[in-house]
């Protein structure tokens, strides 16, 4: 266990959605390298309260990298410099004494800033509400082992289902696109036999809801690199295929009615 010294934090402060934001500089004279990044902010907040100042608002909850509540652009990277790691699992051992660390909220038009570092990610819920589910009313399910699912298919669905909905993909994307988030959910459900009945309807409604809020994918790959669950952009290709097919298949299905 070693101690880092002289960390300078440049932190974005903003009073509310309409407020004019600004960077505020704070010094952290000493911090253990065992501390997590958010614990460092906790300590700073304790100090601010001691100084009778308002604590810095930031989103966080489970601190195990699974709930997806935490966010933050740290030194220009969503969730900071460590690959495959959400902000809450980032530890100070990733940094060095004397570092200046810049902390900004995730930015996208669809993610308005609520206060300081906290943003609203409600459009993600809208995308799921539009079709990110398999319709399976309680009580009518057949036996779980009725339909065998090949292990590679199940594994691939799981890879995509691992998405924690943190929004890092949008934050990292130069275009503010949510293609990775949407395609991860779409690929998870569209791969499974249970998801086939609604496959193309799902592709159509989810993509079109996504486009009400977010930018378009130009295949930079920043989302994949920022994703704390390392979800592959191959899913975006799956989404693009299914959306194209959906436009044709949905029309065919409708014209037969």
């Amino acid at each position, binding site marked *: 266990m070693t101690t880092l010294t002289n960390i300078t934090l440049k932190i974005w402060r903003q009073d509310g959605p309409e407020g004019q934001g600004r960077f505020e500089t704070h010094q952290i004279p000493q911090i253990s390298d065992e501390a997590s990044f958010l614990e460092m902010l906790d300590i700073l907040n304790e100090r601010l309260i001691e100084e009778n100042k308002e604590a810095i608002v930031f989103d966080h909850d489970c601190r195990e990298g699974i709930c*997806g509540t935490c966010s933050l652009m740290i030194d220009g990277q969503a969730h900071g410099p460590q690959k495959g790691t959400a902000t809450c699992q980032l530890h100070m051992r990733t940094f060095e004494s004397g570092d200046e660390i810049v902390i900004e909220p995730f930015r996208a038009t669809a993610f308005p800033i609520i206060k300081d570092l906290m943003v609203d990610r409600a459009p993600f819920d809208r995308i799921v509400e539009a079709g990110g589910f398999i319709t399976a009313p309680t009580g009518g399910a057949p036996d779980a082992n009725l339909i065998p699912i090949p292990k590679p298919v199940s594994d691939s669905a799981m890879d995509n289902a691992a998405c924690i909905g943190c929004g890092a993909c949008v934050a990292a994307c130069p275009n503010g696109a949510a293609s990775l988030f949407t395609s991860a959910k779409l690929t998870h459900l569209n791969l499974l036999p249970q998801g086939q009945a609604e496959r193309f309807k799902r592709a159509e409604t989810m993509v079109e809801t996504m486009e009400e809020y977010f930018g378009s994918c130009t295949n930079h790959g920043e989302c994949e690199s920022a994703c704390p669950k390392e979800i592959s952009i191959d899913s975006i290709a799956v989404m693009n295929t299914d959306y194209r097919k959906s436009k044709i298949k949905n029309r065919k299905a409708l014209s037969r009615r």
Partner: protein
Amino acid sequence: MTLNLDSKIPEGPMAEKWSNYIAEQKLVNPSNKRKFKIIVVGTGLAGASAAATFGELGYQVETFTFHDSPRRAHSIAAQGGINAAKNYQGDGDSVHRLFYDTVKGGDFRSREANVHRLAEVSVNIIDQMVAQGVPFAREYGGLLDNRSFGGAQVSRTFYARGQTGQQLLLGAYQQLSRQIGLGNVKLWNRIEMVDVVNIDGRCAGIVTRDLMTGEVRSHAAHAVVLATGGYGNAFFLSTNAMACNVTAAWRAHRRGAGFANPCYTQIHPTCIPQADEFQSKLTLMSESLRNDGRIWVPKDPDETRPAADVPEDDRDYYLERIYPSFGNLAPRDVSSRAAKRAVDAGQGVGPLKNGVYLDFADAIGRLGQDVIEERYGNLFDMYERITGESPYERPMRIYPASHYTMGGLWVDYELQTTVPGLFAAGEANFSDHGANRLGASALMQGLSDGYFVLPYTIAPYLSNLLNKPIPDETHEAFTAAEQEARDRYQGYLDIGGTKSPDHFHRELGKIIWDYCGMSRTEAGLQKALSEIPALHAEFKKDLRVTGDGHSLNQTLEKAARVDDFFELGMLMCKDALVREESCGGHFRDEYQTDEGEALRDDDDFAHVTAWEWSGDPENPIENREQLEYEVVKFATRSYK
């Protein structure tokens, strides 16, 4: 004793009680369902599944979460798995065996009928979740895989890598989202419930505070379901998420709901030990690791060699030694206390000597690193991110930490609290786990309550209200409660003291952990019961909350939650004090066998203690529900 603790257990043999109940319950016909409004607070497994199912059935549903999205609820962090009596492995599992294991695992302090129902519906849960697209782990043949878990001798745990809770919650969240999208459920996000309102002896609604604007307002309904989780954060350091709190349950308790068995708290044996004093929370390493990991400490307290250099003869595999038949899979309470004994004896490992080894060297040697990576890869990665050490190269260090609370709001067989119209589901109620919860049973209980129990058991209550007007938000009881809440929050801002809510939370947590943690003594509990009120008095005098009450203020939110933890902390210690026996998660040093195992007192304490609010947090009123065991006979729990 003024609470009515009628458990409403249905007639008939144990295995037929639930089907008898379903056959005989009152129903609400489909066209009448839309006349009823149900409020569901919390969107974890229990809340989301209940709200989604109510929505499907046709009720008007309003659901509340203090997170930005329902998907953030802490159910998401459960790692290991979910039990179900499917017997897919053909290893002798059955509903009866799951029922028996759960009652025994709960140290004979749970209600048999509830547990049997849980075991019965466990099979439906797996069917339901697979139909929703939960990608459970599978064998190469395409069928579902199972693993074994603590406290069971069969493999009945279904899992999705180390993210079972996440996958199940997302399944329930997606069903809820579908209902929100269709307009059957209204979602209120970033809104916290701060009070329950009762009018004419029934729960008439809730009072909420908008975390973004500070707005306090009321919501009237025919019935309210609290699915607001447990109170493990009373210990400050726990594996619970930072925002987990007892406020909803506690406010309901203050309005007349009995609070049952608050001293039953589960200490999970496999967490990453605390690394420094600033630590904000502890991280769980799934219990499933104990399938392949071997737990040991050096025999010599002064051992300085790295783990790999300690020869076999100098290691103490204490679980395998003391409990040869269950070994490293001994139940949570048993293995937690064993770890505590080792660390207290000075055999702890790590820089602060506050952990024990969980060693995978044998498993890697036997199965190869690939298999271990496939099974636990994400857990190993998580461990390495937190500690900077690779478990492939050196053993993990683990230590018990507060993880789950078996106690909670007292509910009857219908999951109704002592306040008519107020229901509690999931970890927020006390019902199914007795004094100790078995691994992979929390997910099972949350989904069982939400999908398969509440949708049936809420109907009889609602059917009595058919075509009767209910008071709306303008009723004076609502306006009075709103004013009380506004005053309460303004009060925290007005104290203008010197210490932050976190400071008090940390101090409070330390008292509760020291005296009401893994082992408890009469003297310690007495001490806690004098220290907590003193600290609470200081809190009321010296709290400092910066910022204001009409924009997002996390310090203010925290202050209110800590305030409720103080009162709960007193109740936990009081409950632990009057329960003069050791059982499950409640271990009193005075009551143990010669070998240091829990010593139950079935003659005097085979009851549920449901506490009633008296207006004075130091003097709650004790009520008892006697537990009757028709099927499972009392036996000393032995895992040897």
